């Protein structure tokens, strides 16, 4: 009996980083991208989601292995193995990607509260202040609990999905049958879907949380389980978002231009509660990511350059860490307050930036996983490398196609 108890405790001790990372992954940009994918192209992008689930699981496993073997953060490893200049380059990439993501998440906060009738000029400053207080003044335990409770709200999407009564047969069919449309808009959605599902910041975040939990190769079986379960969950929720929008907006031929459209359009079709659910889901998801992404950026950058980090420290003990976090929140929020800013385009743009910058970070990760000095006997196998290279090449190719189609004006 005691043995089983210990085993369960161990599972719960180890499971978590992968799961939380995955939940935070379905942020404002993610929800918007999936909604648009469903609204404009119905079930037809679902095959992409399935494919991406495997690619995501694959890369998250590699990052988890890297973390468990080395016990070091990703930016620490990049610094130690590639030197200062490459670190600077990687950090600039991360900063650009994460800053656009932060803007996107404030766009999500603004949009979701506008659905519920709150002006963005009130909602954004208030949430910036709330998130700032949460991290700068709050304790570690409080912040952790906040995120865990927030994660529960993701059930909202699954409920909305069932309320919308989708065509399950067609959904299942599209999941395994690839379709392509040669329009730039389709490729924007395509890359945005990659960009929102596999993000640069996730790699840093997952690695740090595994290192922080003190998880080593001894418990690697559980780590793998956690990562795979997390990957499944994030895409399980993405699936419901696409399906909901396909069953309602696409079927009714309603084009989505902003998040209010997406939420309000659901009301007459799927009942008034589904738009409230949509708004609540979007809000909590955006809140979670609007805090985690700047936080993980501050951690990554400060670690790379050897500066103090930690939310249990105060402003004077870790000045650059807190300044960076504060700055990302304020600038991210301020960008949303620009009058007439097309929120949904901002969110989509952020995902595209992430999709285009992602290969840079993935290549660093691949190089580290092939370095025997770093990984010892746990270096990537040949199969792994080939599969990973195909995935990276696919992402690069998709980015290039987007570029060409945009230049040709085929929107």
């Amino acid at each position, binding site marked *: 009996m005691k043995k089983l108890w210990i085993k369960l405790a161990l599972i719960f001790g180890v499971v978590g980083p992968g799961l939380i990372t995955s939940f935070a992954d379905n942020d404002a940009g993610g929800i918007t991208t999936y909604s648009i994918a469903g609204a404009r192209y119905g079930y037809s992008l679902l095959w992409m989601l399935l494919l991406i689930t495997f690619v995501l699981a694959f890369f998250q496993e590699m990052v988890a292995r890297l973390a468990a073997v080395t016990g070091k953060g990703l930016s620490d490893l990049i*610094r130690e193995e590639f030197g200062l200049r490459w670190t600077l380059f990687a950090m600039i990439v991360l900063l650009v990607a994460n800053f656009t993501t932060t803007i996107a998440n404030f766009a999500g906060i603004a949009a979701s509260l506008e659905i519920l009738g709150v002006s963005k000029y009130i909602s954004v400053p208030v949430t910036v202040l709330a998130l700032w207080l949460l*991290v700068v003044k709050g304790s570690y335990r409080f912040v952790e609990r906040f995120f865990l409770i927030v994660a529960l709200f993701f059930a909202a999407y699954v409920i909305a999905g069932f309320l919308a009564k989708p065509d399950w047969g067609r959904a299942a069919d599209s999941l395994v049958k690839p379709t392509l449309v040669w329009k730039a808009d389709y490729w924007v959605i395509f890359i945005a879907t990659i960009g929102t599902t596999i993000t640069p910041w996730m790699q840093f975040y997952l690695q740090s949380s595994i290192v922080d939990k003190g998880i080593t190769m001894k418990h690697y079986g559980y780590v793998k389980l956690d990562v795979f379960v997390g990957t499944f969950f994030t895409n399980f929720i993405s699936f419901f978002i696409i399906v909901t929008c396909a069953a309602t907006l696409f079927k009714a031929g309603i084009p989505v231009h902003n998040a209010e459209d997406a939420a309000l359009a659901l009301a007459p079709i799927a009942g008034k509660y589904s738009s409230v659910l949509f708004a609540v889901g979007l809000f909590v998801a955006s809140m979670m990511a609007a805090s985690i992404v700047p936080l993980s950026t501050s951690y990554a950058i400060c670690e790379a350059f050897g500066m103090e980090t930690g939310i249990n420290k105060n402003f004077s003990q870790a000045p650059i860490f807190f300044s960076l976090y504060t700055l990302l929140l304020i600038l991210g929020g301020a960008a949303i307050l620009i009058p007439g800013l097309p929120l949904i385009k901002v969110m989509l743009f952020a995902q595209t930036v992430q999709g285009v910058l992602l290969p840079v970070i993935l290549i660093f990760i691949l190089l580290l996983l092939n370095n025997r000095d770093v990984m010892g006997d746990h270096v990537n196998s040949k199969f792994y490398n080939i599969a990973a290279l195909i995935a990276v090449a696919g992402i690069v190719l998709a980015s290039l196609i987007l570029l060409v189609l945009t230049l040709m004006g085929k929107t």
Partner: protein
Amino acid sequence: MRYLSHYLHRQVHFKKQHLGELADWIMNARPTQAELAGLAITDNDGRERSISLNDVESLGHRYIYLKRNLDECPDLAPAEGQIRLAEHILDKQVVDTRKKKVYRVNDIEVEQEGERFLVRWVDAGLAGLLNRLGLPESLQPKSGKMQRRIAWANVEPLDPDLKSSFEKLSKLHPADIADIVEELGVTQGANLLERLDDETAAETLTEVEPAMQSDIVEEIKPQDAADIIGEMEPDDAADLISDLPQETARQIMNEMESEEKAEVQELLQYLEDSAGGIMNNDYLAVSRRQTVEQVLNKFRADKPEPEVAYNLIVTEGGEKLAGVLSLRDLVVALPQTKIDDLIITDTPTVRPDTPLSEVADLFSKYDLVMLPVTDHARQVLGVITVDDVIELVVPEKWKRSHRKRLI
């Protein structure tokens, strides 16, 4: 002032001939200073060669001239205490043994003193960072918080490839080393502990927060872990072992020496939150019939740990508790005095199942430094010392380490 980064990748010449570029500085590192012994050069074919400083004509930060062609220079023999600055120090983590903290090295300040090149400081601040990225000197911050220079005498490299003995680090208080271990995390922390001597490692491990202790031990090979745990106080060792997964605990116990193993096993049977859970069974007991001189001799021979040395257990008829004896009374008494005349017989005692709150109350009420634990027949089972009680009463919040963070 010159930085190592000014020299790295500079061209190496002999007369007008380009031979390659500078890859690294090879140093003879001693605790107080590091002196350049040779250079590592990547030749035109991409191979790395190590040469002695004797073969270097001039070492400038633009060009490096050799006295002869690279092929004619003999290889620099690896020697003990040799380190490579770029490979082992630059961009890596080091401990500042004065501030007792871990820093990442941004650059290394080098200095020419006649013919010799010395490392004086390691830079871990913003100034070194900006310099490294090529910011002109006039734009670099000069003073204040932006600078963080660590004197070489206080630098302890942490690079796991370096088989260093942690000469400087080992001199720190184990509690300070424990903070560094916590900062480094499980994998690197375990790595550091393994390279300390067993006694220092044991004292350090005792000071590491309990949740991390077991994770670290799981990372260490069972034999090494057994050596370290064998050096710990039996009560601390028992606490640690009871936190380990059964399989790991069994492996480590198998590797332990029989005497230490027996002490730990005896303590493992008690509940963690009772007097038995914090008591120690490695203490000094003397008979009430002995003299001061005899006891002092025994004391000298046994060399008890400081925690259990302030008060001695006095027994009669084998293991039965007669009372306690303070070290102070023992030392000030004449050699022929009988222990019987010195013992305190009305000392409080507890049973192994006494709750911890009661134990703490007794310590506070009677100003104790040690409390005997006995069974119903007054047989001594162990002692509780004041350091273990302080652990109990210091609020959790104080102990909670700064290591915890959000991600």
